[in-house]
């Protein structure tokens, strides 16, 4: 590994206590043949936001699915390594049990129950709960996303952005300890992107929810996260505190766009350009 930063992979400098979530050197194979993750390790400390960046197909979503157990439903399998949550091994556990342990994944592409109303989708989010504060939490979600309250129709007819809001709201309903977010800002308008990130920050600060954030909008992600990982082809190639990453030259060029204040224009791209590969 030719990481530009000399930080240890598994122990973020900011959190000496054992992390809430620990992924140790896992290998993931789809359909018994396609090796997608090759020895990936990361750690998410309690109460923090950790960002996971990487190119398309790097295996970010796969990593999240490996944690939440959803891999099983896609003929994928963790063939090596381990995933620990609060010290307890959870790889190989059924996804619905993992949800009950307090990990909730907001899947890529929203994945709402299209033929149910917003309200029903939210109530479903609270499926694992048996307390009677569900109503209050629904109001809380509505206070975060007032638009949702106006939409009484079926979730399938919502616009893309509305669906994204509902997906995040649904995750809140489960009151998880750890939320795995797969590209929460995808398809949102700039205004809403900001809103979503401020909500992510709020969730983290007010409710103390730990968040593992997969995001293509690196700028935003690093602005809320305290620590970050960059992965490529199934491996972590770079990691460090958010500040450190944000000032790293390569990250700047390939994830943030431009050096410092001057922004590279999309207009004047050449067909041939420098591509940075860590591997």
């Amino acid at each position, binding site marked *: 590994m030719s990481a530009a930063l000399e930080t240890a992979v598994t122990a973020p400098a900011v959190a000496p206590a054992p992390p809430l979530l620990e992924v140790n050197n896992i290998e993931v194979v789809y359909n018994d043949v396609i090796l997608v993750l090759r020895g990936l390790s990361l750690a998410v400390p309690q109460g923090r936001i950790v960002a996971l960046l990487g190119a398309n197909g790097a295996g970010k979503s796969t990593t999240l699915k490996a944690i939440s157990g*959803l891999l099983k439903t896609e003929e994928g399998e963790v063939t090596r390594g381990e995933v620990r949550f609060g010290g307890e091994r959870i790889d190989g556990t059924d996804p619905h049990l993992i949800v009950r342990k307090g990990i*909730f994944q907001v899947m890529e592409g929203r*994945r709402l*129950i*299209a*033929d149910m109303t917003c309200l029903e989708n939210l109530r479903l989010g609270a499926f694992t709960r048996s307390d009677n504060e569900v109503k209050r939490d629904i109001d809380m979600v509505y206070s975060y996303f007032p638009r949702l309250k106006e939409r009484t129709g079926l979730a399938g007819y919502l616009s893309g952005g509305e669906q994204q809001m509902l997906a995040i709201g649904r995750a809140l309903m*489960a009151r998880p300890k750890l939320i795995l977010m797969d590209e929460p800002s995808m398809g949102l308008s700039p205004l809403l992107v900001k809103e979503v990130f401020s909500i992510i920050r709020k969730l983290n600060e007010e409710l103390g929810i730990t968040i593992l954030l997969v995001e293509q909008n690196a700028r935003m992600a690093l602005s809320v996260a305290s620590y970050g990982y960059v992965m490529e082809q199934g491996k972590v190639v770079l990691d460090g505190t958010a500040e450190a990453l944000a000032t790293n030259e390569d990250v700047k060029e390939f994830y943030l766009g431009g050096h410092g204040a001057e922004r590279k224009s999309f207009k004047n791209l050449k067909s041939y350009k420098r591509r940075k590969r860590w591997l």
Partner: protein
Amino acid sequence: MDWSLLLQLTLNGLIVGALYGVVAMSFVLIYKASQVVNFAQGEFLLVGAWVCWWLLTDWQLPFWAGFLFTLAFMTLFGMILQVVVLRPLIGEPVISVIMATIGLGIFFQALMKWIFGVFAKPFPPIFAAEQVSVFGLQVQTVYLMSLGISVLIMAGFAWFFTASKHGLAMRATAFDQQVAQSLGVSVPKVFAMSWAISAVVSSVAGVVVGVVNGVSSALSFYGIKVFPAVILGGLDSVVGAVLGGLIVGLLENWAQYIDAEWLNWGNMYTIAPFYALILILLVKPYGLFGTKNIERV
């Protein structure tokens, strides 16, 4: 026009239709939870009827006790089936599961013949008055029983699917198993639940048919007979299934009337519902009560 015959046939249609409705409901239940068309539904009826028959004759239990034991057994039966056959198929395309139910149908058809023989067997008398007169039509008492039960079951389902969170979970599972799992829903449990309930509900119908006609393996034909009912009502609507059942019952009887009075074609009784089915689907592609799929890009 022979009004009294028509009236009697109408009544009969409603009563038999309620029975179809019960089977249709149990059918829709599995569909709602897993989008699986259960071709073994008829065999559920069969198993329920035989078990009840066995308890009443070999064990000489009173009807209510035998009936309750049958329901308990069917709960177990549905769950075991789910564990043995359907759990391994979770995540496979729906068509595979549908095919598996065909396998199940073949299997239980033969198993029942093996255990209970190939001859039709009668139920012992159950009600003091085997038949009662309803508006001049002699009706088997068990039919009235099934009518009562089906109303109860229907109300229960209506509540279950809209208000209970398990009902929601079931619908979510039908829509997308992966998402349901990500929400903490145990897909195997949902399946177990729906199969168990479905088995119980259809065994009620099985017992009723058994009491009326005697139990024999051909009873499983009811499983196919309800297809028009289910589709007319719309695959995903419990209330629709019951109404579909009633409509099919009525159609059959009216067809019989028209046939007997004017056409003399014979066989209209069995075929008419299917003609009606095609016509209705042409006008309403999602049945009378089914909901349109969400199609948004």
